[in-house]
């Protein structure tokens, strides 16, 4: 590549790159590829975590059953929704519309296609059971530590800045705590704990 071309390339990069950078208001807005903090997609039914988990105080695991048994947090099957919504029809118009959509999906057998909120790359192996059930000598980690306070949220969203550094820092903090308390069990820092 000649010197002229190199300069041209540099200028072009600045010309196109600068407006992109300026579009972000603060440094916090710049996200690395694959990090989608604050991602809160529209869903076919405007489900409210605030109402269910907050106001009604339903346990997370009533719907996300099996989160302490396997890798996935799992979305509830429609039969779980229908346990209540067979009778609960909603008060506001938007709630009524949403519940109607749910009932139609159930009655027709079509089901509901949701948008997945938390997507790990294919090379990351996260396991909910290890965190929700096994961690901290079997006491488990509260859902809110990773997912934020869902009792205040509406639709599902990515509350935390889910990067590898975030995972690893938490594992390091846990290990420091274990050592203080004299426990042997450790949060693994080996690469093959998540990548294999």
């Amino acid at each position, binding site marked *: 590549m000649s010197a002229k071309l190199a300069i041209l390339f540099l200028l072009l990069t600045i010309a196109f790159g600068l407006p992109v950078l300026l579009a972000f208001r603060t440094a916090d807005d710049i996200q690395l590829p*694959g990090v*989608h903090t604050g991602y809160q997609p529209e869903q076919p039914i405007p489900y409210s975590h605030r109402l269910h988990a907050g106001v009604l105080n339903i346990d997370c695991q009533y719907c996300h059953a*099996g989160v302490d048994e396997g890798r996935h947090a799992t979305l509830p099957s429609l039969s779980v929704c229908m346990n209540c919504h067979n009778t609960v029809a909603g008060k506001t118009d938007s709630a009524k519309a949403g519940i109607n959509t749910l009932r139609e999906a159930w009655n027709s057998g079509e089901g509901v296609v*949701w948008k*997945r909120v938390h997507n790990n790359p294919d*090379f990351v192996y996260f396991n909910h059971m290890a965190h929700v059930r*096994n961690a901290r000598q079997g006491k488990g980690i509260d859902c809110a530590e990773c997912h934020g306070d869902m009792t205040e949220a509406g639709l599902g969203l990515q509350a935390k800045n889910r990067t590898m550094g975030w995972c690893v820092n938490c594992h390091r903090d846990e290990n420091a705590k274990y050592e203080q308390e004299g426990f042997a069990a450790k949060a693994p820092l080996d690469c093959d704990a998540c990548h294999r």
Partner: protein
Amino acid sequence: MQIEFNQNPRPAQDDLADMPAELRQEMERVSKSRRDFMKVTGMAAMGAVLAGCTAPDRLVKPLLKKQEHIMPGVAYDYASTCQACSANCGTWMKARDGRPIKAEGARDNPLNRGGLCARGQGQLWGLYDSERLKGPLQKSSPVKWEELDAAVSGAVKGGGAVLLTGTVNGACAREQIRRFCEATGARHVAYDAISAWPIAAAHKDTHGAAVLPRYRFELAEVVVAIEADFLGSWISPVEYAAGWAVNRDLRNGRRTLSKHFQLEANYTISGANADERIKLPAAERGALLTALANKLAGNTRFGTAGAHSVPPEKLDDIVKAIKDAPRKALVVCGSDDVKHQKLVNAINHMAQAYGNTVDLRNVSQQKLGNDDTLAQLLKDLESGAVKTLIVWGANPVYELPEGAKFKELLAKVGTTVAISAFPDETTTECNWRASADHALESWGDFEPVRGLHSLSQPLVRRLYDTRNPLTSLLKWAGHADGNRDYREVLADYWKANVLQGGAWEAAVERGFVDAQGSVVTNMPVMNEGAATGLNAGALATGDGLEIVPYQSVLMGDGSQANNGWLHEAGDPLTRATWGNYVALNPLTMKELGIADGDDVTLSAEAEGRKVELKLPAVRQPGLAGKSAAVALGFGRTQAGKIVYGMGTGALTGAEATIGANAYPLLARGKVVFGTVAKSGGNRKPARIQEHDSQEKRPLLKETTLEQWLGKPDAGNDQHLPPANLTLWPRWEYNGHKWGLVVDLNSCTGCSACVVACSVENNVPVVGREEVATRREMHWLRMDVYYEDDHKDGLLTENENPLAGFQPMMCQHCENAPCETVCPVIATSHTEEGLNSMTYNRCIGTRYCANNCPYKVRRFNWFLYKHNDLTMNLALNPDVTVRTQGVMEKCSMCAQRIYEGKRNAARAGVKLPDGAIRTACQSSCPTNAIAFGDVNDKDSVVTRLLKDPRNYAVLAEINTRPAVTYLTKVRNRKAPPAPADGHGGGH
């Protein structure tokens, strides 16, 4: 359970056939314009930063109603029965989210005791093969089941129907066949591609019952095998290997070894593992058996023995060993001559083997074919007496020696029906093709040994419009049960006849019902007269070389020819992949002026058929002189894309099959002679290992029983460098420290672990050309080393070298050479003593592979694609699918380690020893591999690490591997030490 609409990890690729060419283009493109490539990737990276601002929407659809005991993302084991061959081992199929992803041997099954061979492991490939029959066909046009049923039941009612099958041994299955034949007047003919009928026929004469005995290798202190590869391919290899290993296992304080003689023309893994391997040309089998029987009897009542080449002192050794071990000797023979088998019966009778090592009560039903009824069928086909022929579970056009004639006769039959899951040479010749369930999709029952009833259950909902074969038969017979789910028919039959009050659900959960003890038989008595005066002692004569067709360990009878895992695993002895070859003794090759890899033409005449095979020649030390061995099961023409694709090499058109079909060379009870001549060209087979000598470095250590008894570390005197001789601080392991110990004395080289590893860890299949350029991707390979007798570093003149096998995977070194050279720390040491590989970090410098002394690291030169999309369903979701440009290697099944740790933590217990089993370990028929925590002082591996036989490969370079081996011990006299003083076996 939820279904994810993810982007597929691998791009769709619907034709594997042109993959090598495409890969070549890709390679040329990248190397030609490296700078363009860099530019494009740079821009793509920038694009990724911008795209990173918005998340791609991925969809997820929960079930309407979750099944109660099944968690999404959690794998469960279901008991079933392996149908890769008629040995019918018990399996535990691992299924996750409604699809089977791995087969394991059932550890509680009395037949295989936890092992499962390579072919059993490979079954998954067939399930997800998109070239299966996807619905009923008339010729090749789709029809409705009703049309097919109407046509076939009409034809069957017209009389003259014959049902031709392979071995069907299930009690319920046989009852349905009986009902079909009763209702339609059809005749049932069963045959086996590799027949064991001569053994049954001999027992009919000598014991009055045409049965195949169950051989109890676990009770045999002396094993004499004559042309029977019982560790690799003969009748029920996993069962036999597990039994054989019982008396070869020195890890539990045992101080004796069984004595294993192998007399054979071909070189098999049974021969390689024998204490004494004696070359026996096929023509001399009768003479040798007559001589052996006479010597044991002390007279000549078995006739005159011709001059055979077995040295008299060796024969005396065998006779003495048999005589010294009454009731504990076992003679098995793979000869297809009934007279030979009668002599074997007489020998076993004199050795008092019947009732002990040879079981005539719980007889084997793993081969129920009857060659006499098959011969009658061929006559009836010729005379036109057969009006309708239904073929199920057999491929006579390909696997009968007279297959070409069978194909012509088939055209004369009015109605021909194939019940098959796959298109094959016979199916494509039939008018009607009833698409059958794959073995992993259907209910079925099996009785491999009388009294041992085994069940198979569907692991996945039917992928295509297929039907249980027995349902088809019942429908055509007009039986009401044809309209019921076969599961109900099976359950009703079992409740009435098999379970004896036991619960059906419990039987399904366990997978088998063991009622062997309740079998009542009058023990047949040997009619000694039937075996005398056979006059089988004469030598077979003919011009040229003896042709020895054999079953290879991996391909077997060829029914799984469309299976890349099996083709690529490579023959354990020659390490040749993707095709068969003409194996010749190095001395014979010299005589004929043929070099290794030369193209040759093998011409022979068998039973009046002129056969000509064009194949490469391969040097096989230890093959009987004047013999040429060819593997059966290759040269399929109608098996699918694999057959046409990856294995072709330079050939095109009709020759573009993988290898050549050697079945026409089989001549029942006769030895075939023929010629092998150079045909020009040198189409070297693609081999995984090209050099089979250790060059006097003790990689595979071996000693003799006598030496080992005198000195527990015999053959293992290693000079270890001091532990602190390292540039880096020693690692400390406060929690677990994993270790894996391979007992080379138990390892038979069967290569089940190789295929198990590939299935478990999503190891790609790369094809013939890539193997030839040494780019195979196996995480675990089976190294073979022949006993050294070298001139100039090459094995040449040795008359009969034994061979040893060494499974070689990442050794997980403590001072790992790979770790220190990685510029990006993509390969790192874990706190539990493993060497982990982080694919997403790897930039593909390949420094690690260059620095690995064990050559176990594999580089993804290309994006290896599956031949079809459905094959993606066979991928293990717990293991990353690696992409182009990254390094990979054995992870010691990290996914299983973490799963085991999680489950122990969940149960709130300390991790029990044996709770984690690596894929290679759990597939091993002889239990040669042990895995566990070295920091657990009570674990099996801790004990084995202290065994004086324990050693590390290349210990002298101080890599301090976590994988170690135990010296092989043979029960034989020490071979004379070579001149330079490095004695002790290899």
